[in-house]
């Protein structure tokens, strides 16, 4: 799955919808396509444990979220599983418009306790910095950017499969690439960059707190997002 680009994944999803014979809505125009959009594109090379997309259905047919999920799973190719669905309330914003942060696990092939201590030290040191200026490539050359405030959380989990958990800004206005942070970490460890990212979940902000997109917001609270992971 991680070898598939975002556009290819989008096409694969549309085909699952078609095989599942869901009452999906199509765009108008010359080349009608299913109204389906992901909360946040998944880069090639990254796997995801929980992803989100909005899907528009036609009004004609009554269909429960459970039914949608089971029909999608019956028609999903290997490596793709649908975890849940919910109907959006009227006026709820698209998932892509409200996603604010993402959790990533960077899985490391670390073994010795010494290694673990070194990593913990580096993470603590990074979090202690008031600013972290990196060079960001833009259309017109490179630009210095402070990424410190886009690192929302950084922790190290030991165990048989040690991993660094990163929570980073992931809104359309402020997006921090996990590779950038990994680069900083490995630079300070004075090691070659290794490991593989798994995207764990996506969040929005509700009253200053970060809530997974799947969670329904009680009526009256802030606007809420989309459905099928």
């Amino acid at each position: 799955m991680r070898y598939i680009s975002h556009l290819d994944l989008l096409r694969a999803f549309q085909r699952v919808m078609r095989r599942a014979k869901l009452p999906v809505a199509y765009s108008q125009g010359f080349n009608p396509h299913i109204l389906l959009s992901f909360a946040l594109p998944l880069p090639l090379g990254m796997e995801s444990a929980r992803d989100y997309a909005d899907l528009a259905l036609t009004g004609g047919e009554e269909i429960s979220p459970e039914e949608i999920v089971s029909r999608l799973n019956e028609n999903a190719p290997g490596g793709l599983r649908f975890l849940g669905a919910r109907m959006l309330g009227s006026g709820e914003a698209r998932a892509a418009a409200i996603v604010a942060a993402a959790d990533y696990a960077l899985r490391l092939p670390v073994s010795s306790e010494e290694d673990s201590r070194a990593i913990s030290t580096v993470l603590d040191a990074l979090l202690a910095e008031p600013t972290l200026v990196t060079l960001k490539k833009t259309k017109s050359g490179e630009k210095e950017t402070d990424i410190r405030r886009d690192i929302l959380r950084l922790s190290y989990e030991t165990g048989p499969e040690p991993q660094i958990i990163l929570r980073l800004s992931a809104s359309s206005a402020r997006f921090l690439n996990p590779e950038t942070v990994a680069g900083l970490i490995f630079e300070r460890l004075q090691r070659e960059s290794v490991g593989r990212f798994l995207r764990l979940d996506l969040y929005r902000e509700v009253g200053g707190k970060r809530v997974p997109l799947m969670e329904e917001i009680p009526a009256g609270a802030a606007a809420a997002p989309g459905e099928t992971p």
Partner: protein
Amino acid sequence: MHISDEILLNVTKPGRYSGGELNAIVKPGGAPINFAFCFPDVYEVGMSHLGLQILYFFINRRRDACCQRAFMPWPDMEALMRGNDLPLYALETGTPLRDFDMLGFTLQFELSYTNVLAMLDLAGLPLRSSERGEDMPVVCAGGPCACNPEPLAEFIDFFYIGDGEAALDEILDNYRENKNNGGGKQAFLESVAGLPGVYVPAFYDAEYDENGLLLRFAPNRPSAPATVKRAVVSSLDAAFFPDKFIVPWIETVHDRAMLEIFRGCIRGCRFCQAGFLYRPVRERSPETLFAQAGELLSNTGHEEISLVSLAACDHSRFENLVDGLLARCSPEKVNISLPSLRVDAMSLSVLQKTQTVRKSSLTFAPEAGSQRLRDVINKNLSEDDILDGCFRAFEAGFDRVKLYFMAGLPTETDEDVAGIARLAERVVDQYYKLPYEQRRRPVSVSVSASCFVPKPFTPFQWAAQDELRAFNEKQRAIKDLIRKKQISYRYHDAPSAVVEGVLARGGRPLAAAIERAYRLGAKFDGWSEHFNFEIWQNAFKQSGIDTDFRVHRERQAEEIFPWDFIDIGVSKKFLRREWERGMEGKTTPNCREGCAGCGMAAFAETAACGRESNSALSLRREIQP
């Protein structure tokens, strides 16, 4: 499958190499017969090929067989595989190709031959059959280019000539029986040598003179028949067709479902190998096709379905077929694509129905620039047909037209070449006959001229191919003659046509040159960015191949061709007669207008030629002036 990220995340489009597509079949532990379908081109090309999808499910429908796929890795992947000692593997399970019982290559065109060698090499197998031991897979090859198997004879254990559905089961039965009896590769080859369509090169001796002319060709053992008859499926309605296709994760060249509406062609254009190789015409009925479309679409989720054939509107119930498909597809927002249409009134009306929303470009293939030359090649299409067709298309709202031509056709003169530019300009003029308010934007006419390469089993198999210099001059002439800015002109690579020509009509002595070219670095020769003429020139020189003599001379009537021992059903006598008629500028009616006696009717007992309904015949006459 466990190919490391260090490899897959460092190549373009890793999805080419990771497998796991929808509807791919994994049989854990394999089966008594493990078959790898090998496509000697990159994944996106191979996965667009209908034959692969048919044979994959055909073989996998057997409990005793397991078919997996392998493609030629793109050069970036090839380099990493070689650097990491990773042998070429099959996508379904990652099993190395050398661990299979059988490798089956499809030969779609001559410029993929070095890729066949590259895949054997990447699999860790010796290139030549004689050097592969009993413990190595049987290597076979089929597809259109197998009709002249001789250039690859040294590398392939057996060729299969004809429709896969016809005798492949029997071959696999023999393989299993032989294996159960403890027989080896040689015993298996002996057991299939007499089956329809099977050619085992090692069982035949060929003698060539120093110019590469074939002197003698004969079997060297009783199990091998003197003539290899093409294997033919008599009814497509009864033939196997998969109810699903593998759905690639990544975008392929033709990313859609495909229906094979008929095999064969009634036309008999004298340059066209497919037009003779797949005779007779065998149609699927609309009812069968509706059912197949329904299954394919619900099992793949494809948003487009393409009607595959050599000339879609020659289906005897074409309108009926398209109307029925439209009724089924439109509510599901499935597009119908018609890749092979002729210019006539009916086609245009059908096209308008299938393209209710988008007016994409229209493609016409006049092939030659003058009526005289179109008669020589038996392309029964007049200039008026073309111009009327274009005018009607413009009236209907199309404003982009593609025109396909060939340069270097037999008897071609400067006047014919100039005709290409003139015809294109007249097509532009047709657009400006429309009232001003109907012209929404400037018309765009794109002209493309490929280099004609004579092919075996066509009336032009005797023809001299144009020399490089002549191709280049003609292409420049067309370019210079095109004045109108609405016309864009594209031409094909002439040097690769020379290589294609040598390989297409060559014999066994070419083995050394193909291997040489491969060793010198030739691969993906069909891709202009990879084709290297210098390599091939060196390879030919080093192997003593005189390309001028091989392709640039007209062949003698009595010459024995390397492929003469294969009987495709169309007789050499008929092809010679067609060559002579062509030289006299005489056309030959198509199969529905009258039987020209090609030999096919006698070859396949249940041949469908001539069995078309009368109504289809008369309809055809009205349309074809």
